[in-house]
């Protein structure tokens, strides 16, 4: 058991847990932050996608010991607080297109979408079909077409 400190959704947190425990379980089982979902545990389904220092990552595949005290983790619960509006524009776009069916993968989908748009913008270009084709987040309900539409809407407003 050891102590680990990092910033979670804007607040400094400290947890006592074995250093090898992956961040997904620290979030869900220790801190009760359940937005990031388990779908595979091996960085394949991407249901747990969250942000570390503003970039998308999968907490199922990072031991908590990799975190420093100033590392900022944002889960879906903290996404809206990164903007001045009630919800993040991508969350609004998701509601507008009524994307979610069961909703299980959607926190990860939205976090991936936000990071993708940021990445593409940083490259000085707009989202292309090939960017959408390359999203690895799985949705077993098959909401993919509406995800594609919502990302394009969200991109316009980000």
């Amino acid at each position, binding site marked *: 058991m050891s102590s680990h400190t990092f910033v979670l959704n804007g607040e400094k947190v400290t947890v006592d*847990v074995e250093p*090898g*425990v*992956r961040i997904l*379980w620290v979030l869900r*089982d*220790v801190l009760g932050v*359940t*937005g990031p*979902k*388990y*779908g*595979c*545990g*091996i*960085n*394949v389904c991407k*249901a747990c996608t969250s942000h*570390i220092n503003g*970039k*998308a*990552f*999968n*907490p199922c*595949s990072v*031991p908590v010991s*990799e975190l420093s005290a100033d590392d900022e983790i944002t*889960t*879906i619960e903290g*996404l*809206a607080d990164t903007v001045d509006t009630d*919800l993040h524009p991508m*969350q609004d776009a*998701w*509601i*507008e297109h*009524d*994307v*979610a*069916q*069961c*909703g*299980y993968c*959607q926190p990860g989908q939205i976090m991936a979408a936000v*990071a993708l748009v940021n*990445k593409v913008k940083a490259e000085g270009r707009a989202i292309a*079909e090939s960017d*959408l084709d*390359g999203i*690895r*987040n*799985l949705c*077993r*309900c*098959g*909401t*993919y*077409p509406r*995800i*594609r539409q919502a990302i394009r809407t969200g991109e316009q407003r980000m």
Partner: protein
Amino acid sequence: MTDMPPTEHLDSRSGPSRRSFMGYVIAGATLATGAEMTLGSEPAEAVIPTVPGPAEILDLNDLLTLAAAPTANLITVKIGTDGRASFALPRAEVGQGIITSSTMMIAEELDLPLDKIDVTLAKARPELMFNQLTGGSNTTISTYTPIRVAAALAKQQLLRAAAVVLGDTVDALVAKSGVITGPSGQISYGDLAVRASVTDTVRAQVTLKTRAQHTVIGTPQGRTDARDAVTGKKKFAMDLDVADALPTMVARPPTHNGTPVRLKNEAAVLDLPGVTDVAQVPTGIAVRAKTFGQCIDAIREMDIEWEGGKLAGESDASILAKVKKAQLPMVVPKVPVLTQRVDAEFTFRFRSNSSLEPNCAIADVRAGSAEIWASLKSPVVAQEEIAGELGLPVSKVTVNVAQGGGSFGRKLFHDAALEAARISKAMGKPVRLMWHRVDEPRQGRLHPLATSRVRATHLLGEVLSFEQRHTSVQTDFGHGLGDIITNHAAKLPVAGNLSFAQTIFTLTQEVPYNFGAVTQLLSETDDRFNTGSMRNIYSPDVRTANELVVDELARKMRKDPVAFRRKFLRSSAAKAALDKVAELGEWGRRLPDGVVQGVAIHKEYKGVTACLVELDTRPQTVERDVRNAVTGPRVTKAFFAVDAGLVINPTGLEAQMLGGVMDGIALALTSSCHFEDGHFLEASWDNYFYTRQWNVPPEITVEIMPSDAGQPGGAGEAGVAASFAAIACAYARATGKMPTEFPINHADELAFEPKPFTPSVVQSPTDGLDHTY
């Protein structure tokens, strides 16, 4: 309290013209109204087609709806002093949007905004028996009338109470947005909730709105839980806060349905960080720990002796040989000498029906009682079986129905709930049980391997006979559907002593064409697998086999596939849907070499669907390189038309069809499980290739066909069969021959390295920070 409403007995099955039904005003502190779940389930009418097949006279939905008749009980709408309405839906929400559509039905009759209505999921209610089963796309069909009756009765009672308070007549009052206004003033539903209540439950008559009066039903509405879904607030079973229910996982056998003999290093496992308990259960060795990560660590340390089980040593080939042996012979009717014949046989491989949320359940088993939390589509069966397993009376087992992260057939079963109950009992502690992803395709439920043989004969432009013999590894109907059949099969207008599976097959399958002498028979064999339906039971496979043969008949008769289908289709709704996709998709338009169209129709769930796709089979598409993926031919355009009768929520219906098309793509092109030496090789979403973004059609259109039907049809599964069939037909056209196996890539070299079988779970990577973006 107001005066009693009229209580004279009237026929609760009044015809749609009168739209009057009997319900109940239920005794309570605030207003509560109820209706029998069976309300509105009128006996199916024979439609007198030229050659009626059983599925046309009475389909599975009629059976599901009729089945509840002897066990009717009430569903209840309550009005609180805060002016909000509440309703506990006796069905499972697993993504279909039935909470939203149920909210809409209540809003319609109660004249209350959607955001003032709280629809939750009912706990297991044994008194509802068969009427708490979510399956067969039956939810909206069976709840449409009772929910509206209960809501309408609540409004009627509120109006009567308001008339007393305001001193006006009911006729002079208008209810809108939760407020009743009359010449003398206005009063809110909340202020009437107590006044409108009764001390003794009474029957009461109420008239429903006509379809022309609807202002909510039929309008596009976003999901009522959309905000919770996009903010991470939506709670699934594993997100529920149940005291001391620590993470629990199970080390599972290396072979499908193997069993544990013993754990050889229990003390060492108990010594591992975070681990609190281990216990042997029939399905494996369970471990409970502070985190799921530590459960995974512990399973990987376990030294377990296993029994191989009944499937040890078997493989795809041996199972297929057994299925082929069970095929029933064709009985071609006597046909003229010059008759030509089309013979075809197709194999449909094992597929995993796992949702993204794995099997999971929370169980807290105490000395004289137990409580379960899980997403369950058949909670009453779960409750009864768990009570039996624990040796408790049914009344001592509380089964809470959590929202499900998808189902696709899996949550008809309560495998995780039963397993969690066993583990909690063995450990004497609450447990939060979750299956590892690896466990899902390997030990979870599969859509069974099946073959479909079709023989059709034709002469002089007419099809004289069409025979189909569908043969399958046995499908498990142990989730309650079977009980329905037991009770009602004898009353059905279908021939003879059919088994559960045969009865369901007969009630769901229909060849929608005028093809002369038609026979469709099912035989099932081999009960050694964990099986279940998968977003539909037989239809996607059966209809794909049919539609491929339809295309072949058209080709041999030198007819255009759309024109051919139009000529032989019996149903005008099916012709209209076919015409719609042909128009939207510009059937026959000029396309580059290697890009082909395919079209198919399907008729089930009191509705029809049609799908037209364009499939790109050009090398630059097929050979796209995506890491750890199957690319292959890509559906580049899909046009889908659905006639689902009366539509509650077109936005939700469209969503269901989009999902159905994604399933059709997977079934045709990419997703199957390989069975080898007693185990399934797949263990991850990068092994089991469900549709991913790189397989998604960039262009997809869903058209909802106008319908003047008075009742809704089913939607949850309706989108799959026509999509699968249309893609298969396009692929056959592209390659110039009918494919004989689905998915088409099953026999290819494995697109992945199978994960080890021992230990049963894989370790999570540690390099996640190398892959940020």
